[in-house]
């Protein structure tokens, strides 16, 4: 099933709030996980696993390093 960018953004906001304690409102497309949201490599794995549960799209470990911003993840899930 397809999700809109807005649905994915909102879903990622909830996930990142839950996993990293970053308020969902701070999770906007242009934000960098490492530089802006202070999310480390292990939390990225947890976010990928939660996003897979929510959106049904697997994000493999070897792709994670290329997903630098929230928008990158939205685009990946949309593909």
């Amino acid at each position, binding site marked *: 099933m397809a999700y809109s960018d807005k649905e994915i953004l909102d879903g990622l906001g909830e996930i990142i709030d839950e996993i990293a304690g970053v308020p969902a409102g701070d999770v906007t497309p242009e934000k960098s996980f490492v530089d802006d949201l202070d999310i*480390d*490599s*292990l939390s*990225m*794995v*947890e976010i*990928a*696993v939660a996003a897979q549960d929510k959106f049904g799209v697997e994000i493999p*470990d070897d792709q*994670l390093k290329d997903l630098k911003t929230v928008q990158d993840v939205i685009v990946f899930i949309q593909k």
Partner: protein
Amino acid sequence: MKISPASPGARIVALGEYQPANIVTNADLAARVDTSDEWIQSRVGIRERRVAGPEESVVDMAVIAGGKALAAGGLAPEDIDLVIVATCTQEDQIPNASASVAARLGIPSPGAFDVNAACAGFCYALGVANDAVRAGSARNVLVVGAEKLSQWIDWTDRTTCVIFADGAGAAVVSASEEPGIGPVVWGSSGERADKIYMRENKYLYQEGQAVFRWTTTELYPVALEALERAGVAPEELTAFVPHQANLRIVESIARKLGAPQALVARDIVTAGNTSSASVPLALSRMIGRGELPSGSTVLTMGYGAGLAYAAQVLRVP
């Protein structure tokens, strides 16, 4: 053909542990590689770890931990008829550690073999010891997890040198009327053997994200199965003592067990990741601090390179 008389059960009668004297703090490591106390504590949850001296071997540490377990259990060396050492970091592959450990402890001609299931080694060895006693192949087994990871670490690699450490833990498993060790649930995933391996044949290396994903998503069902096989409900658990790989992994698995009352071993904070030694080391230290009453129920689980894993329920001696 006749077969050995079986025992209705087996249980751990005593534990012992050993940690090298040398404490290496996060500040010590930050002086050697590009890292910080904050980085290490937030990523792996370790404040300090123990590192063996240059002359201190895996066998040396196993002997001390094993000797303490024998003394605590009130057993004489002659009582032991099987010695199993779980280790993957010996100085040499041959000879094995277990026969030397037995000889040094004065245990006369026991069965002796090593188990290499990496960080899962102690739980594998405990499962084998339980089966050996129940089948009548042994009456009293000394099971040791002993590791000197420091001699297989690239001390310039900040992703591994902050995690791994040295130490040993031991348990004596004896025949008993009531079972005190539950069925072992074990397994492996060799198609992912490349996730934790020896780089250049001398340095331990792991793909952190892959290992983190595996441990935090695929292992809690193994823990739950060990509980189910033992007929123990999560809410009956006094403690969960998993391999001390990384505090975030430990806490993630613990959260998924549905056992909020269970004390969760956090020995890694001051002991680091000691591979197969971590479960008996944590267990022995928790008992020593009076945190685990005699007869209470604990879930142990090891997991690591292989990839291999094993879990079982046991009663505290």
